[in-house]
């Protein structure tokens, strides 16, 4: 069977890969968006923190014998806490300055973290075994669906939607949104805004680490796994509109799928298609698809 002259097998295969990539784009851009909303900085360390998440999973297995499911729980917490320490000790001192200094600082941290891991583990990947419960796959008739990949898509979608719900529909989320609009006023109401900022940064970073753990069995655990990915995610964030929660989720998954289909129909452009879309979006809507005019 073929669609537009392409075998359905290939088409659905790329759709699956697109959804997998989209899951990572969505989780990472969601974290970036949450952080940007409150801190007004673009967290350049995000890619390094994603990589650190995967490494924490690897260490847990190697040193403590704790498998994938524990890693899924522990890695985001550990990386989130290091993120909060980073925010408390350094980022906090820059809030009064131009936000570009925050970008430069987090860029510096990304270089340090990636350099240290590369020094220790080289540039080649370390294998990380798939959890036993999710090995294998099922035949859907039109394509073969590996269980682990289905899990990644469903789980990251669930995490994204939960985050959206918490931010847009709960009391805690309303504090957060209010602090994004006007931190001084929210503080005057007796809410500890600096602590909220720290926790938000920790949460955003934790999402990156969670994506790292999810990625570990698919891609190998590699010191540079986040370095190039994060630039694509920056483009995703620009397309979706900085600071928009739903925008990040929708554009994340959507662009993953578009990228996957580009691989089928015009493979030469698969690396650049997201950037081309970004250029077009910027021409038509400079604030991004879901962004509000600043």
């Amino acid at each position: 069977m073929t669609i537009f002259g392409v075998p359905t097998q290939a088409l659905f295969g790329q759709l699956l890969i697109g959804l997998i990539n989209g899951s990572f784009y969505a989780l990472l851009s969601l974290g970036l968006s949450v952080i940007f909303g409150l801190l007004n900085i673009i967290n350049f360390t995000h890619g390094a923190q994603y990589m650190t998440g995967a490494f924490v999973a690897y260490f847990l297995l190697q040193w403590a014998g704790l498998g994938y499911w524990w890693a899924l729980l522990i890695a985001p917490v550990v990386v989130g806490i290091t993120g909060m320490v980073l925010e408390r000790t350094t980022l906090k001192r820059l809030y009064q300055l131009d936000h570009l200094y925050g970008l430069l600082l987090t860029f510096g941290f990304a270089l340090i973290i990636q350099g240290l891991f590369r020094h220790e583990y080289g540039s080649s990947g370390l294998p990380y075994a798939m959890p036993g419960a999710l090995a294998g796959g099922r035949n859907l008739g039109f394509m073969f669906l590996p269980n682990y990949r289905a899990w990644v898509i469903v789980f990251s979608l669930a995490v994204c939607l939960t985050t959206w719900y918490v931010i847009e529909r709960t009391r805690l989320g309303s504090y957060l949104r209010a602090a994004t609009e006007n931190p001084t006023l929210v503080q005057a109401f007796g809410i500890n805004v600096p602590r909220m900022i720290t926790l938000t940064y920790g949460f955003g970073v934790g999402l990156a680490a969670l994506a790292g753990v999810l990625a570990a069995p698919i891609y190998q655990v590699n010191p540079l796994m986040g370095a190039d990915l994060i630039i694509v995610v920056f483009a995703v964030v620009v397309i979706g509109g900085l600071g928009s929660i739903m925008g990040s989720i929708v554009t994340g998954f959507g662009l993953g799928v578009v990228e996957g289909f580009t691989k089928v129909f015009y493979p030469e452009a698969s690396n650049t298609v997201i950037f081309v879309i970004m250029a077009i979006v910027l021409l038509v809507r400079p604030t991004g698809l879901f962004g509000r005019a600043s």
Partner: protein
Amino acid sequence: MTATTDQYVGAAVPVVTGVSIAQVIAFLMMTIALVAAPFFVYPIFLMKALCFALFACAFNLLIGYVGLLSFGHAVFLGSAGYGAAHSAKVWGFPPELAILFGTAVAAALGVVIGALAIRSKGIYFANITLAFAQMVYFFSVQAAFTGGEDGIQSVPRGTLLGVLDLRETLTLYFVVLAIFLLGFLLIYRAIHSPFGQILKAVRENEPRAISLGYRAEHYKLLAFVLSATFAGLAGATKALVFQLASLTDVHWTMSGEVVLMTLLGGLGTVFGPVVGAFIVVTLENYLAQLGAWVTVVQGVIFVVCVLTFRRGVIGEVGNLLRKSL
């Protein structure tokens, strides 16, 4: 608007207009040092530093005087390198035309990317320039004429204007020095012209500049294209010096490096980018054997500069001497 001096990136040092005696003295000292240097220091190393110094000066034009942080400036360095290398090697252009062609390629890319990026500012601008740079990088990986991972190798240096044989290292050095000084002075001239004044006005308060009748977007675009052009001049020259145009020069790490040089030397200072480039190139030279530690050291410099040393080397010196350098 009353603001502490280092509230904006690039406003770390208030820019005094007009040529000051201190700047003339500093310029003469720099020129004398650079004329004498090849007799004491390995010339290829110096030429590398000079190319990066010009690159950083071009970058500084944008961040220091317009307040726009481009995170994709490697595009202009790299594409000009490819342009110069390809035209010299495949089309047999003489070096002067190869450099001009490479620079023109960068300028053209500057017009396209600038027109799209200039509509945004701050973090958006940084993100967008970075994304475009990555697009050009992927294009360079795939395109046939760039030679992919191998790059364009053994580019002929040729004879400049049919007179100066650039295979002579010392001749080449003085040609590179002349290009650097020319670029440096032109950038200096641009900053200290009425055009430069308008750029600063746009940086400080864009709505007010617009209300005074200045078309801010045009000035910003012009500054972007100028910056791209001089970055291209540096890249084209670099390609001839090393007889190589490669992916390294288009990669985002290179964009990060030029930010580092400028930040370390002093954002918005005239001589800062030159000093920063020499420090970073020297450091990399010594640390080259240590592999990944280079990245770590660069990261540490970033962190230290941003947290404690936002004026940069020349900014601090200028502050001590109470002079704008």
